[in-house]
């Protein structure tokens, strides 16, 4: 049932996997991108270590710029750099970048098709105790409505690294959503990655689970258990690219299963759940259940507590899949 092409770690369900945050993938990936192309620059707004921009800063001090706490300014400067041929990555927390500087991104970057890569760190519930102000649960929605913008939501260290390198090679604005907490690295160096391509991680005929971000690992474990215990076979699709959406991969799966669950650490309206619902309601309407944050702000608590409370844990996923299956 694990799809061979995804080249996942063979021991994904049997051993404890190595854990790293996706922000580390960016930190390592942007150094590789910087080695390949001297036009790659990094700008950061007083969060150099937390966004893992420090690795690039140490390696290429002349190509790193500290802007101080000024995310709007940082977005504007990066547009100017990009228009002049540079490839700037701008890094802060997702609540501020693209939260605070959205309109600068809209006009100076997206409308201008400036070749800027926007790095939104600490997204979703992964900042736990910091509370609602710092939990970006709306950033996918903010970015996917912008024309010209590519939106990537990597789900482990390896994918974040590849997404970073791929975004440097892609010409145009890209948003990459990262998380703070360590999460299992279930991919390998050989796992394929391509902007705009969804990936089937697990094959099945009963229900399609579409996810983005590290929460995919919960979905994989839930699917494993659903198969072992109940013989329910889930097809798990990783939609790291939220925009442009890989409609074909999704439609092929949904035609087979007829049922969809989306899972994300984001508001269900406007995020992955919104994107998938919009697409399917036009092209192939089926029963959909969107798991995510339901029109509320977050709160303080540990990451694990919040995942449970907001209905994104394994038990909840299993319950929802069983419910959806029994509804027909």
């Amino acid at each position: 049932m694990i799809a061979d092409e995804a080249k996942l770690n063979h021991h994904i369900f049997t051993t404890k996997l190595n854990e790293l945050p996706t922000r580390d993938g960016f930190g390592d990936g942007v150094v590789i991108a910087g080695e390949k192309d001297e036009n790659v620059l990094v700008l950061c707004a007083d969060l150099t270590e937390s966004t893992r921009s420090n690795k690039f800063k140490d390696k290429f001090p002349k190509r790193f710029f500290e802007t101080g706490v000024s995310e709007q300014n940082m977005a504007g400067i990066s547009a100017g750099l990009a228009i002049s041929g540079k490839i700037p990555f701008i890094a802060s927390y997702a609540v501020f970048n693209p939260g605070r500087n959205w309109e600068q991104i809209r006009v100076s970057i997206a409308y201008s098709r400036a070749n800027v890569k926007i790095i939104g760190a600490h997204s979703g519930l992964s900042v736990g105790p910091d509370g609602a102000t710092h939990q970006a649960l709306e950033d996918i929605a903010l970015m996917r409505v912008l024309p010209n913008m590519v939106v990537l939501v990597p789900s482990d260290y390896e994918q974040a690294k590849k997404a970073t390198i791929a975004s440097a090679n892609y010409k145009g604005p890209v948003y990459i959503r990262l998380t703070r907490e360590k999460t299992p690295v279930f991919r390998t160096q050989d796992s394929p990655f391509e902007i705009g391509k969804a990936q089937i991680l697990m094959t099945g005929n009963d229900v399609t689970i579409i996810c983005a971000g590290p929460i995919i690992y919960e979905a994989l474990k839930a699917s494993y258990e659903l198969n072992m215990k109940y013989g329910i076979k889930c097809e798990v699709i990783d939609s790291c690219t939220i925009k442009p959406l890989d409609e074909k991969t999704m439609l092929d799966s949904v035609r087979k299963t007829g049922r969809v669950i989306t899972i994300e650490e984001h508001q269900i309206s406007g995020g992955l759940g919104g994107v998938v619902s919009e697409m399917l309601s036009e092209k192939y309407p089926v029963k959909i259940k969107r798991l995510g944050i339901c029109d509320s702000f977050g709160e303080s608590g540990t990451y694990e507590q919040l995942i449970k409370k907001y209905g994104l844990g394994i038990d909840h996923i299993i319950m929802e899949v069983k419910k959806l299956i029994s509804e027909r």
Partner: protein
Amino acid sequence: MPKHSHSEEIAKIEEVAIELRKSVIEMLLEAGSGHSAGPLGTADIFASLYFHILNIDPKNPQMPDRDRLVLSAGHICPILYATLAHRGFFPVSELKTLRKLGTRLQGHPHINEPPGVENTSGPLGQGLSQAIGMALSAKLNDQTHRVYCVGSDAELQEGQIWEAAMFAGNNHLHNLTWIIDRNNIQIDGYTEDIMPLEPLRQKLEAFNWHVLEIDGHNVEEIINACDNAKAIFERATVIIAHTIPGKDVDFMQYKFEWHGKPPNRVQAEKALKELRTLAGRIRSEHD
């Protein structure tokens, strides 16, 4: 500056400040995450405000004519929570719920949760604008209470601060006092290395503010400056309070590394011991 306060009153506030610092250390240890430097550095300012300057009533937190304290740098909220609890807005025992699931003491403050919290903050640079709105509203309603905004220094790097500063300067908001915690640190280093703020006084004067500069650990200076602001009728006042980040905990003082880190158990015990010794010294000096 004229001497307004009796030395016993000042000694009492200094003792409160030490108690607040102790609570901050205990809260952060219990929470396992959160910010140390800013809360310790602003303890004297918060003690002076809530135990002398502000017209407030813990039993009636929504009293219409109360003075408002808007916290702009939300990450230093452990000191706000500790102060509110010690002033009687809610039980001191609740402080140990900081940052935990279900708490009213969110990692960054949420308005009215707990009582006494006047605004929502955490994302830097928003508080001064919120305070201006409250000061404007007081003027429109012919209310005589004052609005205080406590902010950090690195948030002056945000454009919104200067938009707000320009507005306050233009609107003669004499009922507004803005206190800047000038501790010279931010996350990535010292402010003057990261994105220099100086000459700060001249910048603020150029925005048409009445500018005062004080030692932010000198209770008498804090009180006198806030009194002085009340006597100014055409302009809003900004007090640049020079502080030491991590004040009174030797291994934290002056170190930007302590901006966003809690002490571990050994460090917390060491810090509490230092603070207890200090409290004893203040008490014996005034006996």
